[in-house]
């Protein structure tokens, strides 16, 4: 057998109280030594179960019912060399324990929860070493320990820890998400496995970090000569790392083949649907995403809802609906819990002099890495927290009102006008309230209508978001993520708002569902004349839905431009690195990994003139927003020289 791993007709069943669920139904694929295979599919397609079956870490309720997993066990010092069938091997046997972690290792999606918070990084990495690579001969324990530490520190350096010696003794929660994932990779690779299984390794990370981690995996693969099995739903990631692709749907392989064949000549309708459902940079304006399962949106009965939009189409149409001026917010961190400490608390600037405006009926996309202040900004607009300085002017048709000046009671009527859609549809619905109660609650709070009219409104809203009104008496747990997000949208629309703040509304959803929700939001906007503040870390999603994009970094607004201008001519170094880090689902447009790692543009201190805080002649002055024409603004001291079009390959 010249393949490293062959999966033949694998079938896995789960025995649950609800009956037998067939998660994997006869899947076959192979991995060559040193090659990269990607398994692509939606959630629930059984791709993670396959990985667990290979690792022998299936949940207790799962059982391999058929098929073989042949692994070419060639590692040195193993008790059993040669070809092994992992499917029939006892998962608790010594032989399997040696393979697991030694020959085949795995990294997971969520780097925070994958590491134990109670043990240091060094301890957890060294443990793998102790289990698989310990040499019992001769050496005393201290020498052994020192050697293990040395190997671990070397490994940490290899995966890109800036100061590995210190990192050895840190706890996972002291590290950023990217470093945690690096630590996970170090742990997986410290024994030099011949196969690395990466289960959604970058899904929880920011794009720039994602690109770095993908590069790291590729580099390590070359250095250690191992094979990689990457499991993901992101076709952009697949296009950038894989040699071969296996597309799975409901536990079956839909299509498999070499990377170029899969992307250039997709055969199976499911694969084609999947490719069409994902927004990517540089889509034409009028191209609409095609969700794998289309939902029907009924906007015919909207007369009762859209009254205010007709009223709004008055002379103030051109005036911005929301204007944010010089908003500043700092958080203070109380460091020590001393009773009589006088030392000033450490402060973190979440928003540094941010200004922007949103036109009525348009959609402003707010983009940036996690922690850049996007959510803080939206919370201040909602008055869920207060700003230190600045104004939020809201114009609901007459004169602009500064929301910062209002007290809670004065704010109340305006709350009907601004509504919020949250990221996580699972935790933003009360599990003890029926859908009817959930959607009608805003009406009850604001005392709008009587019971009958509320019923009518709720029915209309359900139709509007494409849900069956029969479901109204159910509770949130009986809905899927996408359906819940539609319920959240219906609730937000119940008060007939003018402005909808969407905080990462699709990032917790699967690709196919994502397209549904994005289309729904687009349709609602055009039908109801809504104004959106759309927050996301996903540039492609923002590109699809927004008219104007604002890019934030470390609390600063760095660039503000119409979609096309931003992607075709990004000026700020941060925007450039952000755009260049987005993986495109096209093998012809690979990420330029070497450029990525060179620039650390998410740190404001690294920005060169004219973007730096240094105003050129040594004086420290914050740069303002420079107008470069066509509604394109960039944070700089002077108009930056037009560089060659970095984003042209995306545009």
């Amino acid at each position: 057998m010249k393949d490293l791993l062959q999966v033949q007709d694998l079938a896995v069943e789960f025995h649950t109280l609800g009956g037998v669920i067939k998660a994997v139904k006869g899947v076959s694929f192979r991995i060559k030594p040193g090659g990269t295979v990607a398994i692509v599919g939606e959630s629930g397609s059984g791709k993670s179960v396959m990985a667990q079956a290979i690792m022998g870490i299936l949940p207790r309720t799962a059982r391999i019912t058929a098929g073989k997993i042949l692994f070419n066990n060639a590692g040195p010092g193993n008790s059993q060399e040669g070809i092994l069938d992992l499917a029939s091997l006892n998962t608790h046997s010594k032989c399997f324990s040696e393979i697991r972690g030694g020959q085949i290792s795995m990294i997971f999606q969520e780097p925070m929860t994958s590491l134990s918070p109670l043990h240091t990084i060094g301890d957890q990495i060294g443990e793998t070493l102790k289990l698989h690579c310990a040499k019992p001969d001769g050496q005393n324990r201290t020498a052994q320990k020192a050697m293990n530490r040395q190997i671990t520190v070397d490994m940490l350096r290899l995966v890109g820890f800036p100061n590995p010696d210190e990192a050895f003794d840190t706890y996972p929660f002291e590290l950023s998400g990217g470093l945690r994932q690096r630590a996970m990779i170090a742990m997986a690779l410290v024994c030099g496995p011949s196969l690395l299984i990466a289960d959604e390794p970058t899904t929880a990370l920011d794009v720039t970090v994602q690109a770095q981690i993908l590069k790291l995996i590729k580099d390590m693969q070359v250095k250690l000569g191992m094979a990689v099995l990457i499991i993901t739903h992101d076709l952009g990631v697949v296009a950038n790392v894989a040699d071969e692709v296996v597309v799975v749907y409901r536990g079956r392989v839909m299509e498999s083949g070499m990377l170029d064949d899969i992307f250039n000549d997709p055969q199976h309708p499911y694969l084609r649907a999947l490719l069409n459902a994902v927004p990517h940079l540089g889509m034409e304006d009028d191209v609409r995403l095609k969700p794998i399962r289309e939902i029907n949106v009924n906007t015919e009965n909207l007369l009762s809802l859209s009254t205010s939009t007709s009223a709004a189409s008055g002379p103030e149409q051109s005036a911005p609906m929301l204007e944010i001026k010089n908003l500043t917010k700092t958080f203070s961190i109380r460091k020590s819990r001393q009773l009589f400490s006088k030392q000033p608390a450490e402060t973190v600037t979440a928003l540094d002099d941010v200004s922007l405006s949103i036109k009525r009926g348009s959609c402003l996309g707010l983009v940036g890495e996690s922690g850049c202040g996007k959510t803080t900004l939206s919370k201040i607009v909602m008055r869920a927290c207060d700003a230190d300085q600045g104004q939020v002017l809201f114009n609901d048709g007459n004169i602009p009102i500064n929301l910062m000046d209002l007290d809670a009671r004065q704010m109340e009527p305006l709350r009907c006008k601004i509504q919020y859609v949250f990221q996580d549809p699972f935790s933003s619905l009360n599990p003890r309230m029926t859908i009817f109660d959930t959607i009608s609650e805003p009406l009850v709070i604001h005392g709008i209508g009587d019971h009958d009219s509320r019923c009518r409104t709720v029915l209309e809203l359900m139709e509007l978001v494409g849900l069956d009104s029969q479901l109204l008496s159910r509770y949130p747990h009986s809905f899927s993520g996408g359906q819940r997000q539609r319920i959240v949208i219906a609730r937000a629309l119940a008060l007939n708002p003018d402005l909808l703040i969407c905080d990462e509304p699709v990032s917790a959803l699967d690709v196919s569902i994502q397209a549904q929700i994005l289309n729904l939001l687009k349709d609602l906007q055009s039908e109801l004349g809504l104004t959106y503040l759309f927050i996301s870390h996903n540039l492609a999603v923002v590109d699809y839905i927004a008219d104007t994009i604002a890019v934030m970094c470390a609390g600063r607004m760095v660039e503000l431009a119409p979609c096309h201008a931003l992607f075709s001519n990004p000026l700020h170094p941060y925007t450039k690195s952000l755009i260049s880090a987005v993986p495109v689902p096209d093998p012809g447009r690979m990420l330029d990994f070497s450029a990525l790692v060179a620039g650390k543009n998410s740190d404001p201190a690294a920005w060169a003139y004219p973007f730096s805080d240094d105003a050129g002649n040594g004086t420290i002055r914050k740069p303002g927003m420079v107008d470069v024409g066509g509604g394109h603004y960039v944070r700089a001291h002077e108009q930056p020289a037009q560089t060659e079009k970095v984003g042209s390959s995306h545009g």
Partner: protein
Amino acid sequence: MIYYIGNRLFTMAGTLLVISVLVFFIIQLPPGDYLTTYIAELQSQGETVAQEKIDFLRQQYGLDRSMVEQYFIWVTGLLHGDLGYSFEYNLPVKDVIGDRLLLSMILNFSTILFIYAVSFPIGIYSATHQYSWGDHGLSFLGFLGLATPNFLLALILLYFANLTFGTSFGGLMDPDFIGQDWSVDKALSVLEHLWIPVVVIGTSGTAGMIRRLRANLLDELHKQYVTTGRAKGLPEMQLLLKYPLRMALNPFIADIGNLIPQVVSGSVIVSVVMSLPTTGPMLLSSLQSQDMYLAGSFLMFLACLTVVGMFVSDILLGVLDPRIRHGARGQK
């Protein structure tokens, strides 16, 4: 860390001061004092008491002074290690409770050890073999233990122990040793008698502990880091002990603060039923008769133990859990 401990010690002193005020005044709250109770008791037995004698006693005990003065006398006494004088026993409080305190501590510490020793293996087994026959059976036993009243179990055990071993197991030692100095024989006798109250008092605690450990551990067992450990190739037992069990321990360490006062005051009813010479029944009677120095000393002692227990558990939590040690940065 040193600052933290210093801060905590400082707040502890303040807390204790407040508690001492509360304890003293709450004991004094019911109308009358020890003497009125005492006189009422004498009168109900048909005896008359001369007014002069009452006044004399009142002055003797300092009951004629104002409440604030009495409080300060009591607190300064406490600080000097003088716990005051028990009216009921006509002895210094220290002599009254000394031996009993030691015995209750022995009894209750062994109970706690018993609880931990029995419930940890069972809890771990139950969690790792969820919904197996073993789990169901042990859970059933646990519920039985929770539901059985302690004193009933005590009577049943006493009866059967008497039938089987032929000796009376009431009390904590053979009657011959009561009031004698400690010796090897006395200690052996205590050990011989100890097991019944330990089992009786420990049963419900064990049952509760098994349920909690099982629930905590079940929460942890499905966390991602356990899968990571398994993917490393860790053997199951090693994995269990190093990762999820350590995470599941936190609530139990946080519980130490509550456990320590229980060690002294708990199990009143069982002590009465089995005539154990522990502190529980004595606290009860001293409160009934408004024997304020005795009751006050008990309550202050309990308060001290609670505060110290909390302190110990906080420090232990800090030592065991880096997220707590490193403060707010861990709350991510």
